């Protein structure tokens, strides 16, 4: 069994990370009734004898759970969020060495996060990463969680990404990036996002983009459904999708529902690596199957079900509905409709009591409606994990490498250009040591060429591409 390390950077990154740890604990305790520290737990948690001093140098393998520590590194350049975590119910999960904090924050300035704090904390960060890696028997993947619009998550987060590539080149880097909505209250978020995009394109293996606006829409829709009083549409109480209730933390805070969705995304993506199933899908298989060209590694996530109805339908129909929903606009975590763009590849990770025949039936059913690129007409990667998430009988996570991300990037480019044309706020960036005008031009040019690559593929969409001529064998 392999282990993964979560690196959460910045306010958003740490808040989402927190939700993730809460839900992960809940999921494992649901399955692991005997309190044995098993392989599934060890993928994200260490088992430590906390009596024997600080530093966690005394890992216990197998046997009863004593004290669980998260395989995580928490980075934030202001103390508020991390302190809250340390005072909250999850404090036992982290020991002080896993935290890297500063006081004053990055002022929503990517350059400060990336260059100033990046160089100041470089050694400490590398140290903590190395330590986390050493505790792992077989480290497979780093999960980086951050937002794009701010200063720390965006700037320092992408600096950490570069460090991960330098120090651990063989370990997969899966980045969950929260993109700002158009009405974001941080004025410079377009600058921060575009500067970060360049790093993501160059240094990440996979990126799971999530738009705040989509999360808001989903949460609102769910609230609307639960309040609309439609007969039969009662939300199950212990649904883990938007509610953290039943977990360790108590009352919910404003962004909690949105962060829960992202946390569920991470839980589902790792489920097959943690639990057994008839068709396992490991994390290294995700990049292998979904990334046909190195730079085009942005995978649009969609999760179903986002809510569970208490009334019982015929099981098969409900299962099929889950598959249909995964491709509907309302369930995508970015504001895009993949059905109208070109699929390069698609992964379906199913959890629960679902058989391969159900999977195949649904793929056959949905295929005609989904345009796939000519050389990958059967570009489906599937995984079946037998353990469903808490409170549900089955769930589906779809990851699509689809050209619809282009629209998200184009919007970002537009917002960037509006500011850049007027050179607004640039002096804040250029004052920072290590930052130059060139960084801006390179970043926007990287984004433009990425958009261009997607456009070229899009152009093939409705054209009937002839099969490549086969080799002629002389006999």
């Amino acid at each position: 069994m392999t282990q993964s390390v979560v690196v959460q950077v910045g306010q958003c990154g740490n808040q989402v990370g927190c939700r993730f740890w809460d839900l992960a604990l809940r999921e494992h305790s649901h399955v692991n009734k005997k309190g044995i520290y098993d392989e599934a737990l060890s993928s994200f948690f260490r088992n430590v004898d906390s009596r024997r001093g600080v530093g966690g140098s005394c890992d216990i393998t197998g046997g009863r759970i004593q004290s669980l520590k998260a395989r995580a590194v928490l980075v934030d350049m202001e103390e508020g969020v991390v302190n809250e975590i340390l005072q909250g119910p999850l404090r036992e999960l982290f020991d002080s060495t896993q935290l890297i904090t500063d006081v004053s924050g990055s002022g929503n300035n990517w350059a400060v996060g990336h260059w100033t704090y990046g160089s100041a904390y470089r050694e400490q960060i590398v140290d903590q990463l190395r330590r986390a890696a050493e505790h792992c028997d077989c480290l497979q993947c780093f999960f980086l969680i951050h937002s794009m619009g701010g200063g720390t998550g965006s700037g320092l987060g992408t600096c950490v990404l570069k460090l991960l590539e330098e120090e651990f080149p063989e370990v997969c880097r899966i980045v969950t990036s929260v993109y700002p909505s158009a009405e974001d209250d941080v004025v410079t978020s377009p600058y921060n996002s575009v500067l970060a995009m360049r790093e993501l394109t160059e240094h990440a293996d996979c990126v799971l983009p999530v738009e705040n606006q989509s999360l808001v829409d989903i949460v609102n829709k769910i609230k609307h459904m639960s309040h609309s009083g439609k007969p039969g549409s009662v939300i199950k109480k212990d649904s883990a999708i938007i509610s953290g209730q039943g977990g360790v933390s108590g009352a919910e805070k404003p962004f909690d529902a949105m962060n829960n969705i992202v946390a569920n995304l991470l839980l589902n993506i790792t489920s097959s690596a943690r639990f057994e199933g008839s068709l396992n899908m490991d994390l290294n298989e995700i990049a292998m199957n979904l990334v046909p060209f190195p730079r085009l590694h942005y995978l649009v996530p969609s999760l179903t079900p986002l809510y569970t109805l208490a009334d019982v339908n015929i099981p098969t129909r409900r299962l099929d509905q889950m598959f249909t929903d995964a491709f509907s606009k309302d369930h995508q975590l970015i504001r895009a409709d993949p059905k109208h763009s070109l699929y390069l590849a698609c992964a379906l990770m199913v959890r629960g009591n679902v058989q391969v025949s159900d999977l195949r039936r649904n793929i056959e059913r949905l295929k005609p409606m989904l345009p796939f690129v000519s050389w990958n007409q059967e570009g489906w990667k599937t995984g079946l994990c037998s353990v469903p998430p808490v409170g549900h009988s089955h769930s589906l996570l779809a990851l699509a490498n689809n050209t619809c991300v282009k629209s998200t990037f184009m919007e970002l480019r537009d917002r960037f250009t509006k500011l850049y044309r007027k050179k607004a706020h640039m002096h804040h960036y250029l004052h920072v040591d290590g930052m130059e005008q060139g960084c801006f031009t390179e970043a926007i040019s990287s984004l433009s060429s990425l958009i261009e690559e997607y456009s070229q593929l899009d152009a093939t969409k409705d054209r009937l591409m002839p099969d490549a001529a086969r080799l002629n064998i002389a006999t």
Partner: protein
Amino acid sequence: MSIVTVQLGQCGNQVGQELFEVISNDANDTQRKVYSECSSERFFNETANRELVARSVLIDMEPKVISQSIAKTAKSGKWRYGDRSHFSQKQGSGNNWANGYCVHGPRHEEVVMDIVRREVEHCDCLAGIVAMMSVAGGTGSGVGTYVTQCLRDAYPNSFILNHLTWPYGTGEVIVQNYNSVLTLSHLYQLSDAILVHENDTVHKICAQLMNIKHISFRDVNKVIAHQLGSVLQPALTGDSHGIYNRNPIGELMSSLVCHPEYKLLSVCNIPQVSSSSMAYSMFTWPGLLKHLRQMLIANSKMEEGIDWQVRAPSLQPEGIKRTGSHRRPGFNTSLANLLILRGKDVNNAEISGFQHPSLYTPWLPADEAFSMWKTPVPFNKYEKSAILVSNSQTLLRPLDNMVGKAWNMFASRAYIHQYTKFGISEEDFLDSFTSLEQCTSAADSVVVAWRSSEPWS
């Protein structure tokens, strides 16, 4: 004489386990002592405490499947795997053939071959090695190919049969066509014979014949195991004079693989029914064999939905140009066939329908192209069953499709960077494509070229 099985990757291990399950049930079930003993000796090693230990080596690059298998069999109590007969790692091969072949294979070669050696040493006499794997993933395909190479080097005089599971046409692994092309092109040089099961075909059998509503991989694996078991269990060959064949794999190969360029074998089995209908079914040899023959020539893998319109070409006497029978649509020409009959009244079965020269290519006389084994012992609860192992055109179309899809993808160079980073170059891909195109065009032309005296075009 014993057979050692090497189970590689998730599929290889899952199917392998079902195979031993079928064989152990079949051997225990029967009243015939000689058959049981022969089957036990072939597949199991009896320990001092009368336990049956499978002659099997389990290899996987991630631990979950193997640990599940071992736990399940230990619980059942009927047979088990050897305590030290398995090897697993943590990371898996990530569906990447290059990772399996260039990295994991060489890295673990010594340990793996050690385990194989120990298993072989437990055999009084080694009849051959069966390597079981899928071609779609990374371990079965990549590590499997590398291990086959090692087996070839370590046991140059032994027979190696590769059992391959081909994936569903849609939706298992996106790079499955690349992995398949790389595997097949290598195995064609290394293996003595390649026996293929296609997931799509077996799935249809489960759906239509066995009436399974929600087909799981376990159901698919059980059908594959049943078919494979019915090929490998003891039988009497034509000249064995009442003693069960000692060298099943060798005899399989000498019957079927008459030419080194044509070694893809397929299996056809009749009857195949759900266990609930079995009690109500009455089968006769004429009925079974008639259907089986039509399944062969009409290229159908099931007794349902056979195209009875397809007929064998009529033969003209020598000297007169033959009709373009090779171009007769739907007709499946065989290079060689092996018919295995198991069950009651087996000596009364009329098999001349399979010996007719019209079924075969003309450059091999029909009595050399056709072989038969039989045993009066029924297999796996079927009172009568007939199995046909064919070296025919059946697999050419699926193979061609697979190569075509892989080629299309290769033309855009999609996913190639994932392979080159582990040491497989574009040149290597081209070599594999070339070698497979040669195989398919050779296999196709052998049927075409020799039949008519016109220069073929």
